[in-house]
């Protein structure tokens, strides 16, 4: 299935462990809903980089909808 979100902003830095982040499909889960999106992730630590504009924009609006606010 096509990811719900593609083309994330490239991260301005590498992971704290020194590895370069890679664009990967990750599954975000919120209130029982799953969304497959493309984000930059550390291949070693598995930490996912969420750009600020995404967190304050789409992700905030999605949360608002799912929380029925």
């Amino acid at each position, binding site marked *: 299935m*096509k990811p*719900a*979100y593609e083309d994330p902003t490239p991260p301005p830095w590498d992971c704290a462990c020194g590895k370069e982040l890679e664009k990967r499909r990750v599954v975000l889960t919120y209130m*029982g*809903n799953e*969304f497959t*999106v493309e984000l930059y992730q550390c291949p070693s630590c598995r930490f996912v980089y969420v750009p600020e504009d995404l967190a304050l*924009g*789409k992700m905030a*609006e*999605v949360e608002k*909808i*799912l929380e*029925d606010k």
Partner: protein
Amino acid sequence: MSGPPGLYEQEALWKVTGEVVRPGGLEMTDRLVELCGFRAGDRVLDAGCGAGAAVERLRSRGLKALGIDPSEVLLEKARRRFRNKDDLLEPEASFSPPFARAAAEALPFPDACLQGVLCECVLSLTDSMEGALKELHRVLAPGGSLGVTDVYASLPRDPAREPPWPVRCCLQGAVTRREVEAKMRQAGFEVLVWEDRTQALKELAARLVWAFGSLEGFWNSVCPEPGETGLTRRASEGRPGYYLLVARKVGSDF
């Protein structure tokens, strides 16, 4: 059917929903089939079949399914779906071809000829919900099952008194559960099951945000005139929810 273009005909929306242009997708169709208790060989109409995905699903379960839809754009997709799938066709002479162009308020079928009707995300789109239910009742055999999914309003509203929408969508015709059930009874149906499926509507709205940046961005992408504003607010008026309903035709009158 007249008026503005249908939201369900917009490619921008298909990119998010696929060809099952409604909340819940075919999972909801499967639930309706289960609750209606259809058996292989039953004649079942998908009223508002769109691109025919549910008709294909029903046929793969051995039902003699057929579909009607007022949109020629979507019917062409439905016909393409069935090309080279002879195993899914096998229609009786009187039920061929499986797709016809028609509105739910004027069905091209004789009285009492079907064991079941599915009507998914359609009733709130019709010009007359009462007229559509009357027709669905007419074509169902006595005791036949009607399976519905649709948008409803949690708060009372009067769609007829609101300004027209720039696109035809199910949010504009949504009425309350009490009104839906009253219209069902008036048309000669006994409501057997009501399930709240609002989560599926929220999940679709969330996917639209992921794809279009915001709900406002989505409405701007599907409206024929650029610069439409305020549709997100209008869409949330009445606090829309989504339901799944199963009803049975009572009485033998058409």
